[in-house]
């Protein structure tokens, strides 16, 4: 930089301020031009690491719920993640609805977590909100914890029949994913 200040343009006899202003302007324009150019080429490079079109194309799955009996659950894969779909019994639904919000770590009513008219179906992302393990409880032989939902074997978090965290280090309820009923027994996730 110091060399630039001594460059030939800076000859004696000129107003130094005038000349320095022009030089600063040229430097700014050059630096700004270079920054725009670099940005224009760096963005495509960064964006190339975002999900590609074929990955995004797997963004939705359709599930037929008819074969799932009451009290049972299935696991389907959506965007590489396990989705728990549970066919709840009336007792389980009641248990979930009767919980007082004040007892919850992450207060949320059961109604907010299911679709109205399809209360028997609970659809949640099966990933423990603590550190990403997959909780047990989908198979009839699995431990379901004290609250009858899911039990995470990694650090002992327990979820209730609405997938809400009731005990343990997990800070949040099992996450919900966007889905809709395409018919009474079919849903489309994503």
């Amino acid at each position, binding site marked *: 930089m110091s*060399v*630039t200040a*001594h*460059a*030939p*343009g*800076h*000859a004696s006899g000129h107003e130094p301020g005038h000349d320095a202003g022009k030089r600063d302007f040229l430097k700014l324009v050059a630096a700004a031009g270079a920054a725009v*150019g670099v940005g224009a080429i760096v963005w*495509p*490079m960064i*964006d*190339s*690491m*975002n999900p*590609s*079109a*074929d*990955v995004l194309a797997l963004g939705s799955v359709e599930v037929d719920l008819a074969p799932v009996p009451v009290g049972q659950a299935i696991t389907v894969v959506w965007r590489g993640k396990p989705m728990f779909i549970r066919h709840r019994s009336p007792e389980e639904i009641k248990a979930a609805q009767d919980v007082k919000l004040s007892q919850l770590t992450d207060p949320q009513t059961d109604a907010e977590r299911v679709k109205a008219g399809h209360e028997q179906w609970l659809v949640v992302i099966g990933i423990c909100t603590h550190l990403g393990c997959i909780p047990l409880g989908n198979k009839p032989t699995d431990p379901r914890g004290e609250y009858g939902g899911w039990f995470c074997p990694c650090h002992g978090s327990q979820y209730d029949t609405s997938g809400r965290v009731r005990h343990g280090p997990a800070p949040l309820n099992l996450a919900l994913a966007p889905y809709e009923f395409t018919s009474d027994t079919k849903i489309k996730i994503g």
Partner: protein
Amino acid sequence: MAGLHKSEIENPVLNWIDTRLPVITMMQKEYGVFPTPRNFNYLWNFGALAMVVLMIMIASGILLAMHYTPEKTMAFDSVEAIMRDVNFGWLLRYGHANGASMFFIVVYIHIFRGLYYGSYKAPRELLWMLGVVIMLLMMATAFMGYVLPWGQMSFWGATVITNLFSAFPLVGEHIVTWLWGGFSVDNPTLNRFFALHYLLPFVLIGVIFLHVAALHITGSNNPLGIDPKGPQDTLPFHPYYTIKDSVGICVFLIVYAAVVFFAPNLFGEPDNYIPANPLATPAEIVPEWYFLPFYAILRSVPDKLGGVLMMFGSIIVLFVLPWLDTSPVRSARFRPVYRVFFWLQLLACIVLGMVGAHRPEGIWVILGRVSTAWYFLHFLVILPLLGKLERPLPLPESISRAVLRGGGGGPLPGGATAKPMEKV
């Protein structure tokens, strides 16, 4: 040797670093005030340009490797997925594929600049030889990169080039089997080519570092080919040559972008968009354009081993060029006869390139043989004799004398002539 560096950097944080690891002082010395001959023309841009292309190739290559699958049933499809599905994948791939061509254009100009101005002569012999190593590494890297898309040209190019080694007596077949990792070009070949294609650019960086380190010991050659005799003959690298290189980089990027965006398949072969088929060779099989002269030499010799040896020899001869050229005068500006032979040699290389692109029939066979003979004649016979027979023009006393006597008339206005003297 041990002991802290006395840094003159004013910024306390930078000073703290520089005291312990004087990289800032080093950069100042090697790229800031580095005394550089004042008379460079734009041909001296091409080293910096090659560096820029290498950076682009490595950046785009690493990103491509994140989406590419080096497995024979999936390689072709993964490249097509890069073109269609990956965000800006087309830009990465076209940029990388054409970047290889640009790299060779830049490096070939860089080499011919060295040939014209005698940059390979003492004391820059080792610098030149490292440059030849760089070219060989580039060729190996480019060849293996071309195999990765696993199209017809990839596959048959790999088959032909690896088969070159079968020309060697006794061990040839074993070498080829070893290179392939099997009995034909197949999945093991693809896998190792991918690994090596990823590795070699980093080896390239190492050799380029040595190339530049050697350059900073000898200093740059210049269009006059005479050594700078004092500060009046040089300019600080920054800002004079950082700016001059930047101008060249801008022009280069315009050309590069024009190819990538408007003619991305200009240098490519349509047959490489057909997936590799080990049971059918394409009707017209040619290497990438930058290998055509060497390919022409290979085909011009009517003997398998002879052709292979001549082809490798055409590069090996460059290693001993500093000792083949016996003239003490570097720049062709002062060698009126060498200048003619330089252009003839360039012509021979271009003709060889054209020969390589045509079927070996009729006139192309003759042209190929004449040019091949000329190529070797130039290096092995003409250059050694010319140094003894040619009468060079008188050399200028110094760079500054020659520069200031020339165009413009009289000393340059302002501090341009005086300042650098005061600086150094």
